[in-house]
Each structure stands twice: as C-alpha cells, then as structure tokens.
C-alpha cells in the first residue's frame, strides 16, 4: 500500500520570530477557568442549571410524545372522537386500538367504547394528529411516562388519554386557538345551515298545510274558523318547527350520545 504521506495541507504555522515564554498559553488557560470559577459564585446568568424535579423548564410548543384525546366540556359527552378509526389505520407502528361504541340494540353510536394506545410502541410521529378529521387526537407534551411494570400500565386507555380542550389550549396556545376558532366557525355554519334547512322545512310544511287548507276550504268550511287556526297554525307551526328541529336533532344526538 503506497502510503502517500502528503505534508500537512493546512498552512504552516506562522514563523513567529518572537520568543514566547513557553508556559504562557497554559497560564492564559488557567486565567480563563479561574474567572469562570470566581464569577460563577456571584454572576447569576452564568449558573443556568435548573434543579429538575423542583424547577421545571417549559417544554417547547411543538414537542410531541404520546397523543391525547381532546374533549370539549365533559369527558363523556364532549369527546370529539367519533371512532372513525382513520388514526388506527394510519398509525405506522399500529399501536392504536379502537372499538366502536354500540347502544343496547346494536345501533352504531359514533363514539369509541375502547380507545387504547400502547405507549411503549407509539413512536410519537404525530401522523394520527394530522389525519384526524374531527380535531380529537393531538400530540401531548407529557414526558414523565415511567411505570413500575413493563406491560399493563404502558397500555394507555380512554380515560388516561382524554384531556380537556383547556389543557390543549395551555399546552399549545397557537394550535389550540386555531382549532377552537375553526370549530366555532363550523358550529355556526352548521347551525346556520341547520336553521336554513329548518326554515325550508317549515315553509314546505306551511305550503303543504296551506294547500290542504285550500282543499278543505273548497269543501265550504266556515271562513272564520280557518283564519283563526291559520294564524295559530303559523305560530304552532312555527313553534312545532323548532321542536321538530330539536326532535330531529335529538335523535341524531341521542344516536351519537349513547
């Protein structure tokens, strides 16, 4: 093996003619550490160590570790997750396990009955948070996950995972505010749409009744009676409409809630 001994490619050290006291560099080194030593006793900004368990350094907003499920007001009803299992399918190490909740006679209630994450498998990639259409799963900043046994307590269940929206707001202010505004905007849009739909139903119903009435008048019922129930009818109809609306919604909610 021909070892081509090139000479040092870097420029040769400057030929300093001046005679330098040999130990000078050593003393300068001592001076630097000496200053560090003395100043560390009275200069506060030098001592940056944080005594961990007592004081805690704030974690950065985009730190992610294990996901958590977000709920709006109470953990039962307000859980945003609808058990659509998109995150379960998209999770690379497949560590999410969801069982859809069904009420007593088998009707699907889009809520998870079981939502397990194996925290020893979860690699904190955040894919589930990206794909979740219902803003329910987000990455948590919790890092003290040590447990004293190797199996059971590493499986995080639904109640361990679900955390309030305020926690999300406090954990990641920017992201949480965006989500909340978006949700509020959707809710209003939905409400407006629902209201418009309800109004349309109401008019349709009103038209249908009007035609029925017209047909009834044709069969010579006294004018006065019809006018009276007509102006009652609109209120009643109006009153009925919102109830119907409520009824229409309730079934949907009850369907979802159980």
């Amino acid at each position, binding site marked *: 093996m021909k070892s081509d001994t090139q000479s*040092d490619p870097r420029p040769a050290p400057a030929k300093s003619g001046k005679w330098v*006291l040999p130990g000078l560099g050593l003393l300068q*080194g001592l001076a630097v*550490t000496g200053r*560090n030593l003395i100043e*560390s006793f009275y200069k506060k900004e030098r*001592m940056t160590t944080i005594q961990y368990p007592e004081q805690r350094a704030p974690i950065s907003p985009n730190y992610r570790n294990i996901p958590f499920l977000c709920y709006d007001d109470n953990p039962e009803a307000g859980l945003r997750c609808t058990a659509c299992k998109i995150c379960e399918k998209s999770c690379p190490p497949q560590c999410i396990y969801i069982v859809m909740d069904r009420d007593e006679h088998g009707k699907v209630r889009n809520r998870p009955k079981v939502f397990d994450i194996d925290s020893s498998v979860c690699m904190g990639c955040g894919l589930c948070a990206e794909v979740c259409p219902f803003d329910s799963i987000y990455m948590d900043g919790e890092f003290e996950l040590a447990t004293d046994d190797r199996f059971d307590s590493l499986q995080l269940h639904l109640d361990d995972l679900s955390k309030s929206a305020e926690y999300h707001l406090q954990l990641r202010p920017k992201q949480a505010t965006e989500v909340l505004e978006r949700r509020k905007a959707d809710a209003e849009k939905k409400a407006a749409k629902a209201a418009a739909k309800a109004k349309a139903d109401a008019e349709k119903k009103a038209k249908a009744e009007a035609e029925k009435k017209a047909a009834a008048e044709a069969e010579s019922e006294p004018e006065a009676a019809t006018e009276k129930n007509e102006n009652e009818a609109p209120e009643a109809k109006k009153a009925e409409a919102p109830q119907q609306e409520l009824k229409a919604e309730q079934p949907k909610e009850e369907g979802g809630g159980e």
Partner: protein
Amino acid sequence: MTFLIAQTEEPSLWSPEWLPLLPKRLVENLLEHFNAPEWLISLGGTGAGAATVLAVFMTGFALLSLIERKTLARVQNRIGPNRAGWFGILQPVADGIKMLTKEDIVPAKAEKLLHLLAPILIVVPAILALGVLPYGKEWIPVPMELGLLFFFAVGSLTELAVFMAGWASGSKFPMLGAMRAISQMVSYELPLVLSAIAVIMVSGTLSLPDIVSQQGGFHLGFLPAWNILTPWGLVGGLVFFIASIAEANRCPFDLPEGESEIVAGHMTEYSGFKYALFFMGEYLGLFAISGLGVTLFLGGWQAPLPGLDFVPSWIWFFGKLAVIIFFFLWIRATWPRLRMDQLMRFGWLGLIPLSLLTIPAAGIWSLLQRSQHGLLAWLVTVPLLLVPFVIMTVLFNKRLARSNRTYRFAES
C-alpha cells in the same frame, strides 16, 4: 477524673497549639492514672497520635473528593453534587456506601493474592508517608531523623504496587496502564528527588522538623525565609510541584488511567471496596506529596507574617496544603492530558535538567549567604538559573513549534 484537669507545668491540655495532640495526651494521662507500665503508655500515646493523623486525613479525603467535584463543576459553571445532604455534604458518605455495597468481582485469570495485595500496598505507603510530616510546632506524629529519606523510600513502593495491580488483573488494559504508570512514576521521581536534594543541601539535615524550623525568621521584616522565595527555591519548588502532579497521577499526567484511552488503567479489573482503596491511596498520596512540598518549600508551619504568633502553627500548614491542593484541582479543570511521548520528553529533557541546575545554584546560594554576601548570592544564582532556562526554551520552541505534522491519508 484528675487526668482531665490540666497539669500546671506542661502547657494546658486544651491550648489550641496542642489541640491536635489532645487525644494522645489524654490517653497517656489515662494510662498514667491507672499506672500502666511505661511501654504501654508510650504505645497508647503513639497509637492515639496515629489515630488522630488518620482521622484528620480520612475526613480530608472524604471532603476533598466532594470539593474536587464541586470546584470542577463551578469552573464549568454548574453546581456540582448538591443532592446528598445539605449542599452535597453527604456525597462522600454516599460514595462510600456505594463502594462498600458494590459486588467485588475478581477476574478468573487474575492472580488472587496479588490482586488483593495491590490496593493495600498502594494505601499503606501513603499513610506511612503521612506519619512523617511535621504538621505543627508540637504536632509531629513521628519525629524521625531520616524523615525525608523515609518518605521517598516508602513513596517508591507505590510503583511496585501499581505493577502488581496491572499484572495481577490478567487482561491487557491493566497491563498497558501499569506499564505507562510505572514508566511515568519512575521518570518523574528523578526530578522530585533532585529538587528535594537541593533543599537537603541547603538545610543540611534529612529530618523534616529541622528543615521547617530553618525556614523560620523574616528577611527585611516582612518577607518570610521560606525556601520558595529564594531563586533556586522557586525553580526547585516549581519542578517539585510539577513532578508531584506526575507522581500522584493527576491531571496533565493522568495518562495511566486516561479514561478515554485505556479504560481505567491498572484499576480496570477492580470493583467495590478495592476500587475505593485505589482512590483513597491516590488522594492520601496527593495529601502526602503536597504536604512534603509545603514542608520543603513553603516553610511547613511557619507563619507568613511576623505578628501572627497567637495563631496555632498547624493552621498554617493546613492552609498552605489547601492552597496547593486547590492548584491541583484548578490545573485538573484546565489542562488537557499529555501524550506519552510528550510526557516522557518533558520529564527527561525539561524537568531533570532544571532540577539538576538547582543543586549547584542552591550550593552557591547557601555558601554566599553563609558568608554574608546576600546581594552577591542573588546576582550569581539568578543568571545561573535563568540563562540555561532561556536557552532551553528557545531551543525547545524552535524544534517543537515548527515541526509540521505529516498526515497519511487513507487510500481513496
């Protein structure tokens, strides 16, 4: 209870100057009280004296291990151990318990007896050497006429012990570490002894208490007559100090147990209490060698300024010892480790010529001083020491700094 009451003719039992000797005198009084035979009294007395020295330096060892970690931390702007006890004061206790409870593994290929004997043989000389140093005007554990020779004779035993540790462990790393350690200690014992010879020649005796008492008195009213303040003493003192760093295997010369290269050198195959013994040996050796440095060059228990006689003399000794050990720590926090060849070249071409130089300089100095030519002494010795030093450094600089390193690059 009469032995507790201070006798009139001797200095009072509780006077600060005699404080370190208190246990010794208490035991002697106690034995006299029960009129034990003469030899038992002296035996009990020396036993108690030895016990005090051991107690003092064991607590010193524990404290030093904590202070070292704290100072190294403070230099790097961190706090250092503060969890065990109040401000980390129980850290040595924690280390001790850890060392005691650790399992003591002896490798299969090791020579059982030598493996056990090595750590003992490292601690014993350090403790023997501590017994000879004069700590105070009255506090000399073992006043020996051959104190210095005893110190070096016992000190040279550690080399054999390091070899035993390295060889008995059987495997390669300890062997390499032991060979490095021995070659370093042998080649740095030379400047150590030569600079001590300069002091012996000037003070004319081998007994350490006399060397210290000769450094008493003050020149021009405030300058203490320590050896370090004479030209040859300064050079000899610096050479002694640097060589003692190498003897104690401390930082710039801690090649034998360079963690990055050979795991823990000759201490690799030791665990548990034997490993703690190695550390105890190292620290006690550090105390002993810097204690000797203080005795030879910094005037042992002599007070630095004239008017300080009320202060008990052993406080000066331990004060100077603390200053020197602080320098050890400071240097450990700053300087990188030397390569083996640099270490050897610095030892043989740097320190030994310098220490050889101090001997004639010390001779001329003491002759001229004795014949009352103080000024002439300074005029002769300073150039005698300075000129070769300058020539040597210029020669060194020219040869060392200029040499370009040749690099061999791997075949592409």
